[in-house]
Structure formats: structure tokens, C-alpha cells
């Protein structure tokens, strides 16, 4: 395997995007990613991976990889649409990484996209429920928030965390997202905003949950040796890990509060990078719900098991702290266009390591980690990026 680097990233404005079609949304972030490189254009792309969870349901358009190829005007020789529900973006990036690392392609574009606001929000909720186990969970009234609420109830029992502490995660992420020009919600909130918002699934309120969003994100990868031709500050992909529970539902998880799939995915990424959690300068984690970020910090090793609540109280997860988590605003504030989320995490870390994030910049960041999950936290993708010397 040869080393791989990211030389271009791009994002669209996230939120409600009634002004563009699914194909136009793909083009918008890809154009920004090409502009981010020195001279790469769509004709140069040999591999294309499109991360998209449910274009069939949300926009009545299947086959989004061909849609992307048509709108971008490219005919890649290595390509696929990647559907891994909310982890589609991370999984697509991992596939692009392997396409370059293996020598099958010399340039790859990862395009993550989801256009979810086309349908009324009850229908969007129903679509998201399809990710749960239809027969043994959804049929009983399980929804994604209730899955993570069950996890939260278990965490409260095993380790203890309060709704106020969970709310602090939302407050932090909104504070960061307020400084991110593409974020869906650029508004700071308070602990009271969270605690007084409608109950979705106890102990999670509306402001503990990420929103329904339109948006896309793109990343361009090339062999690390050639990266400087295309960007003055390339970012190397030094670790990649993925792991899946043998389960669609929660019944076969060994623990609801230590996510074995995340621990394994993270260990694989850390060992490939030959680094440890303490070497990370910042993290973009999958805060689909506040409880998720808490457990992710622990299972990524950013703090000890059971000490997530102390990490929250200490403020060490803030920009300027020991280990800033979700400086982009996370899914919570930036938005969660499902297929785009994992790619946007890569984009944020890349821009952070290049020092381009303005008011939300993590000073001196050299190494960062991303974590993207799907389902009942049964599937995780982790990447470690480092600024090229």
C-alpha cells in the first residue's frame, strides 16, 4: 500500500436547500473541492465514490453514482455508490483511500450527499427508522432517538450522567457551529434551551438531537508523494479503521455503553497510524445525539471509560481545551445530511490541520481523528489525518 493524502475539500451551505437539485448539490461541493486544489479538475478523476444513504426515499432518484458522474462530467474507472446509512461518508472515504493506496487509481473524488428536506418531517423520520431492524425494533415503535435514549438510560445506570451534562455537549457544539459559515444552525444556545425543548425520547430532548438537513461534502485524494503538486499543505491519511457488530439491532451488542465496534475501529486506525489517543489534537465525532458524543470520547480513548461526564464539565473538549471535540459544530449544529456527514468530518479536520478555520481554529493542530457511525451504534468508521511535513 502506498501513502495517501487529501489535497482538496469542499462543502455546500447546509440546511434547507430548495434552490438546488440532488445533482446540483453534488456539483456544488465538488467544485469547491477542485478550487481547493492547484489545478485538479473533474477530467483528472480516476475513482469516484458517492456516499448516499437514501436518495430513493428522499428524492425518488436511485443510482446516485451515475447521477454524480453525469453532473460532474466524469467517467471514473473505479467507482461505487456507498450506502452504510449514517456512516456512508466515512465508508466511502475509506474505499477511496484503498483505491489510491492500492494503485488502482491516481486520483479519487469522494462525494457525500443527502437531500432530506424534500419530504415532510414525519416522512423523513419514517425513512430514518428504516435503518433500525424492521421486524424486531421498528415494528415496536423504535425510532433512532429512542435507540440512543435506551443507550443513555443504560449509561446513566452504569456510570451516571445528568441531562444537564448531556445538554452541555449541545451547548458546546452550537457555540462552535455559530462560527462555521456553512452550519445549519449558527446560533448559540443555553443548557435551559436544551432542557426546556420538547421531549423526543427520554432523556433526550429536541436539542439533544441532530436535525434533518440537505447538504453535500467532497474530498479529493491522491498518492501522498504527489500531493504537493496539487496543494501547498497536503493532509496525509495515516490511519483508517472500520468495524461492524454482527447485528442489525441492539440485541447482539455485548454492551450498550462500550461500543465494541468503535473500540475495534479506533484500535485499527491508531495501530495503522502508530499513534495513541493522547497524540490527537482534535476530533470530529458523530454526535447524532448528545449521548453519542459522550460515549465516543470514551471509546476513542480521549478520556477514560466512565469519565466522559468529567470531560464535559472540565471544558477540555472546547476549542482551546486539551482535546477539542466537534469544532465544526458537529452534526448537532452543522446539520446531518446523512451521506455527507462522514465526508464533512474529513473536510473539517483537513481545514483545521491547514489552519484555515478562522474563529473556530484549533491552534497548532497537526493530527486529528474522525469517527462516523450508523445504526444502533453497531457500525463505526474512524480515520486519522496528519498535516504533511
Amino acid at each position: 500500500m502506498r501513502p495517501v493524502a487529501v489535497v482538496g475539500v469542499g462543502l455546500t451551505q447546509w440546511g434547507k436547500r430548495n434552490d438546488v437539485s440532488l445533482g446540483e448539490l453534488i456539483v456544488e461541493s465538488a467544485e469547491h473541492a477542485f478550487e481547493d486544489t492547484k489545478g485538479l479538475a473533474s477530467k483528472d478523476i480516476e475513482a469516484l465514490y458517492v456516499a448516499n444513504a437514501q436518495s430513493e426515499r428522499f428524492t425518488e432518484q436511485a443510482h446516485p453514482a451515475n447521477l454524480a458522474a453525469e453532473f460532474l462530467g466524469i467517467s471514473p474507472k473505479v467507482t461505487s455508490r456507498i450506502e452504510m446509512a449514517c456512516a456512508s461518508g466515512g465508508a466511502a472515504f475509506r474505499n477511496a483511500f484503498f483505491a489510491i493506496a492500492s494503485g488502482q487509481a491516481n486520483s479519487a473524488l469522494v462525494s457525500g450527499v443527502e437531500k432530506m428536506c424534500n419530504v415532510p418531517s414525519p416522512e423523513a423520520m419514517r425513512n430514518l427508522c428504516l435503518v433500525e431492524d424492521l421486524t424486531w425494533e421498528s415494528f415496536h415503535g423504535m425510532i433512532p432517538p429512542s435507540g440512543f435514549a435506551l443507550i443513555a438510560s443504560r449509561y446513566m445506570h452504569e456510570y451516571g450522567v445528568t441531562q444537564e451534562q448531556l445538554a452541555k455537549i449541545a451547548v458546546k457544539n452550537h457555540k462552535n457551529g455559530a462560527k462555521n459559515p456553512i452550519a445549519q444552525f449558527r446560533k448559540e444556545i443555553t443548557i435551559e434551551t436544551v432542557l426546556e425543548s420538547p421531549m423526543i425520547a427520554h432523556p433526550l430532548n429536541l436539542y439533544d438531537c441532530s436535525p434533518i438537513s440537505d447538504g453535500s461534502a467532497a474530498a479529493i485524494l491522491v498518492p501522498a508523494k504527489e500531493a504537493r503538486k496539487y496543494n501547498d499543505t497536503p493532509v496525509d491519511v495515516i490511519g483508517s479503521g472500520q468495524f461492524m457488530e454482527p447485528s442489525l439491532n441492539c440485541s447482539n451488542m455485548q454492551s450498550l455503553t462500550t461500543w465494541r465496534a468503535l473500540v475495534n475501529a479506533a484500535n485499527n486506525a491508531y495501530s495503522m497510524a502508530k499513534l495513541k489517543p493522547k497524540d490527537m489534537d482534535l476530533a470530529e465525532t458523530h454526535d447524532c445525539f448528545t449521548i453519542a458524543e459522550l460515549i465516543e470520547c470514551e471509546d476513542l480513548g480521549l478520556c477514560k471509560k466512565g469519565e466522559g461526564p468529567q470531560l464535559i464539565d472540565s471544558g477540555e473538549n472546547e476549542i482551546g481545551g486539551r482535546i477539542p471535540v466537534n469544532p465544526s459544530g458537529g452534526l448537532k449544529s452543522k446539520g446531518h445530511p446523512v451521506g455527507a456527514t462522514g465526508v464533512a468530518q474529513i473536510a473539517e479536520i483537513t481545514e483545521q490541520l491547514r489552519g484555515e478555520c478562522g474563529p473556530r481554529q484549533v491552534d497548532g493542530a497537526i493530527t486529528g481523528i474522525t469517527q462516523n457511525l450508523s445504526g444502533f451504534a453497531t457500525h463505526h468508521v474512524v480515520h486519522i489525518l496528519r498535516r504533511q511535513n
Partner: protein
Amino acid sequence: MTEQPMNLPYYLVYPESQIKPFWDNLAQNRFTSTKCPNCGVLWPPKSTCPQCGGKVAEWIELKGTGEIYAKTYVGASPPAFKDLLPYIIAIGKLDEGILVVARVENAKFEDLKIGTPIKIKIKKSFGLDSYVFIPA
């Protein structure tokens, strides 16, 4: 016609499923699952064990009793469940050691703790044979 929560589950519609005995037994008020010779009782019932990959042919009667392992009170749902709102969902840890998801009926959320004894009650849901938890 009752609005279905999703398209009908394949297992509930097509009798050729290898776990058809589960639904046949449920219709006769029996709560059953499969047992892997290596890994013990499985949930949900399967003809292949997700832990060891081995073939599973043995069906066993579950006692249907256990305790609350995790719980939540749902205040927002897809349209099919709106008439049930708010409702309680629990993961029950049954005496056989398996984790089962179902709604909890005949209970106040405030009264339910992790460890509260519960039992399976077989009843129809959306016109289909199903089950809920009730306090034991």
C-alpha cells in the same frame, strides 16, 4: 385498514421464512426462540447464529420473564405510532440472558427502573401477532 408502521416485515408475510415457527408459536400464545448449540439462546430467532455462524435448528420455549435492561419514553414518532404517543420502549433482559425490544404497557414510566421485573404479554399489534412487556 390499519396503517402499517413500515412495509410489512418479510418474516410476517411470507411463510417460507426459516423462522416461521416463531410466528406459528406466537399465534398459539407461545413465546419461543432458537438455541445455538455453541452460543445458547438467540434473539431474535435465527436459523444461523450471528455469533458463531453455525446452523441452528433447536426451538425452545422462553419463560417470558425478566427485567428492564434499558428504557425510554417516546414523545415523537413516525405517523403510524402517533395514536400510541407517548409510549414506553424497553430493552428487556429475559431470564435466558437475551435482550428483547418491546413497548411496555400497563406501567407508568416513573415507576420503571433498570432492574424492574417485567414479563412478555402476547397480543396483536397493527393487526399482526406481536408482544409487549408488562410489569411482572
